[in-house]
């Protein structure tokens, strides 16, 4: 029987971590893009679009991410698309994270004082101008800490893609466990690697919150 050293295990896991990082980036950036577009519909003037996006959010926040992954995996196949696990994973994670980002960002836009809308309207600005020059610059400042905080959820969310067969950190953990019979060590390392990715993000979210909140201090 082949003997596996601790270093063998760790190296295998670290190699698989690349895919976790890549998938996290794709999901976060893709989710952010889709979320930003849908956010404009969500807070826009068109009532039908507003309600549609509201239900989109409700649907993706009210169902397990695992089920969304399964449905993407098997559902896309119904349209005759050959679905590799990475595609299903990326599609589901992008839609899932966009649903959460829409709500986070909507809260940030609403946190901008109502008077700012009225003030900019009184200057004769149109909707897009109001957004561009008055609301978004203020909302973005509020949005940075919770957005960074949400990126932690995305990294953790990628772990579920192991269940539909995408080989990332979690799946590698299972594979290596099956080869080495050392589940305690392997899953301990897997947890620590996730921690090493997520904790700096959590911390920086907290630090940003303190830093960017300077303007509101004393209120």
């Amino acid at each position: 029987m082949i003997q596996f050293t601790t270093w063998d295990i760790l190296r295998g896991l670290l190699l698989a971590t690349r895919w976790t990082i890549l998938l996290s980036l794709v999901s976060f950036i893709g989710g952010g893009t889709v979320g930003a577009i849908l956010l404009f519909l969500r807070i826009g003037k068109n009532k039908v679009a507003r309600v549609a996006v509201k239900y989109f959010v409700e649907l993706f926040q009210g169902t397990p991410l695992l089920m969304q992954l399964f449905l993407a995996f098997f559902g896309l196949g119904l349209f005759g698309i050959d679905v590799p696990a990475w595609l299903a994973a990326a599609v589901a994670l992008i839609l899932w994270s966009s649903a959460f980002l829409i709500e986070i960002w909507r809260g940030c836009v609403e946190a901008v004082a109502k008077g700012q809308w009225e003030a900019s309207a009184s200057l004769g600005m149109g909707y897009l101008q109001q957004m561009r020059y008055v609301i978004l610059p203020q909302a973005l400042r509020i949005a940075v800490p919770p957005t960074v905080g949400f990126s932690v959820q995305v990294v953790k969310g990628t772990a579920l893609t192991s269940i539909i067969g995408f080989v990332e950190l979690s799946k590698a953990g299972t594979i290596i466990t099956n080869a080495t019979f050392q589940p305690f060590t392997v899953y301990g390392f897997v947890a620590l690697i996730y921690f090493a990715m997520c904790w700096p993000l959590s911390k920086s979210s907290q630090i940003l919150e303190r830093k960017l909140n300077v303007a509101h201090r004393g209120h």
Partner: protein
Amino acid sequence: MRYHFDFGWIAEYYPVLIKGVLITIELTLVGAVVGIALGISCAWARALGPGWLKPVVATYIELIRNTPFLIQLFFIFFGLPGIGIHMSEITAANLAMVVNLGAYSCEIIRAGIQATPRGQFEAGASLAMTPFETFRHVILVPSLQRIWPALSSQVVIVMLGSAVVSQVAAEDLTFAANFIQSRSFRAFEAYFVSTAIYLLLAIILRQLLAAAGSLIFPRRVRR
């Protein structure tokens, strides 16, 4: 080739689905009750506990909040037997949910406690209450009332997150979906139906928690 949807297959398996739903509900109930109790204890420890306990609790919270639930579950079910701790899949699922919700609810409750004016502690002390009595009677209830909506959404998140316990063969709703899928080869329908059930459960749970909130915390003078 056109795909013909056939939900009739799924209806045949309704006992499996019902059993799965019941187990998901049971997991959520145990997770919520014990998890929130753990969260309150940890919040107490971080606010008023002895000095040595604070870093221990802080480490627990940071570790849980920054690792995926799936890995916590795998560590408990597959990893712990490595050091001689064995448990059934349903116990492991329950434990994972409690440990997970405990960490998140602690942070939420702590936020509620921090939002409590400092004077409340002093007022309690001036009534000759011990710090624990002050915490129990003066601080905790208004804090919980303040953070109830956040706590409710966390419970819903944990309920949805419980879908992964099927991976250690705990027979929850997702397990039922996988079972039906493997029997009927109707993957899309099986997952579609169970996703719809999850959505329904989430909506009902949110309503129930909101109702419970207004029952436990009667409307008081609002600031």
